C-alpha cells in the first residue's frame, strides 16, 4: 500500500465517523478514501472503535429505554437480585439481552445513583459511573448484560451507591454463564 501525500488527519476521521462533518466535508472525505488505501486503513482503525462502541448498550438503562428496545424486537429476560445476593445467571439461546434488576434499593429521596462494577475474584474495576439511570418507584437499577460481555470475567460485583440525605452502598454479585 503506497503512502498518502496528504493523509486525512485523525481528528477529521473521528468527526467523519461521529457524523460531525457537513455534507460537503463528508463527500470530500469519501472521495479521498476511495482513492487512497492508506487513509482507508486509517479510517478502519477509527471505525473499529466507533462502530464497536455503537453496538454496546450503556451498562445501566432506564425502564423507558428498555421498553423501547423490547418494542424494537430485542428479546429480553430480566433477573431480579436482592441486596447482598450472590447468584449464577445463564445467558441462554433465544435471549438478546439480560437485564439484571438490582432491586431492594430505597430510592425515594435519591439525588443520584452511582455504580461501580468489579471483578469479584481479582478486584479489578471494570468501570465506574457517577450518574446512572434508576427507577425510583421500582427501587431498582437495571443493568444491561449483552452477549458480547462473554469476553469479560464472569464473576462481577455490582456496587450501587445511592446519594440521598445519607449515602447508602449496596452490593450484588452476579456469576455469569455464557454458552460456549
Amino acid at each position: 500500500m503506497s503512502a498518502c501525500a496528504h493523509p486525512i488527519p485523525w481528528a477529521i476521521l473521528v468527526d467523519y465517523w461521529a457524523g460531525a462533518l457537513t455534507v460537503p466535508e463528508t463527500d470530500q472525505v469519501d472521495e479521498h478514501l476511495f482513492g487512497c488505501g492508506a487513509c482507508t486503513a486509517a479510517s478502519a482503525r477509527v471505525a473499529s472503535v466507533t462502530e464497536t462502541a455503537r453496538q454496546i448498550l450503556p451498562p445501566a438503562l432506564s425502564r423507558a429505554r428498555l421498553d423501547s428496545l423490547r418494542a424494537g424486537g430485542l428479546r429480553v429476560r430480566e433477573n431480579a437480585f436482592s441486596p447482598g445476593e450472590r447468584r449464577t445467571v445463564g445467558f441462554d439461546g433465544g435471549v438478546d439481552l439480560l437485564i439484571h434488576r438490582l432491586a431492594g434499593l430505597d430510592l425515594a429521596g435519591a439525588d443520584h445513583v452511582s455504580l461501580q462494577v468489579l471483578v469479584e475474584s481479582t478486584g479489578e474495576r471494570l468501570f465506574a459511573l457517577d450518574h446512572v439511570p434508576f427507577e425510583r418507584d421500582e427501587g431498582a437499577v437495571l443493568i444491561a448484560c449483552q452477549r458480547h460481555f462473554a469476553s469479560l470475567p464472569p464473576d462481577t460485583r455490582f456496587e450501587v451507591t445511592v446519594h440521598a440525605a445519607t449515602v447508602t452502598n449496596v452490593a450484588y454479585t452476579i456469576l455469569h454463564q455464557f454458552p460456549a
Partner: protein
Amino acid sequence: MDAPDGELIRTIAAGGPDGPRAEAELCRRFAPRIYLYGRRHLRDEDRARDLVQAVLLAVLQAARAGRVTEPDHADRFMLGTCRNLASRVRATEARHAGEGGLEALEAIESAPPWDGVDAGALIRCLGTLDERSRQIVMLTFQEDCETDVIAARLTMTSGNVRVTRHRAVASLRRCLDARPLQQERPQ
C-alpha cells in the same frame, strides 16, 4: 498484482485470460472501501455487506461491457456507484446481493476490514477514560447525539466536545492496541 486501477479495468474489458485475476484484484482493493462507506452511510453491518456485493457486481459488469468511460478514475466510478446504490438501499431497503455469475465476488470477504475488537475489551478500555470523555463517546456513538446537543448537555463548547472526542477515540484505539489479542487485518 500491483497494476493501477485503470489497467485492471482495461484488462477486464479486454476479456482475455488475465481478466479473472484483474477482477479479483479490483474486488480485493475496493471491498474494504465500499464496506466502510456502507457502515458510515447506512449504519448497518448487513447492509454494508450487501452494498459491497452490489457495488462490485455493478462495477465488474460495467467493466466487462467496456462501460467504465474513464478507467484511470475507477475510484470515482466506484464511489459514484456506491452513492447511487446506497441511496437506493436507503430508499427501498432493497437487497441486491447474490445476483450472480461473477466468480470474483465469491472470494470477496465483505466482513469489516478490521477484526479483533471485541466489545468486552472496549468496555474495559472505556473504563480507563475520564468521566467526561466517556460521556462524550457514549452520547456520540450510543445515543447518536449531535455535537451541539452534547455540548449543551455537558455545558461545553462544540469545539471542546470535538477535541475531547478525538482524544478519547485515540486513547481507546491505543488501549485496544495494547491488548495482546487485538490485531488489525492488513488492507
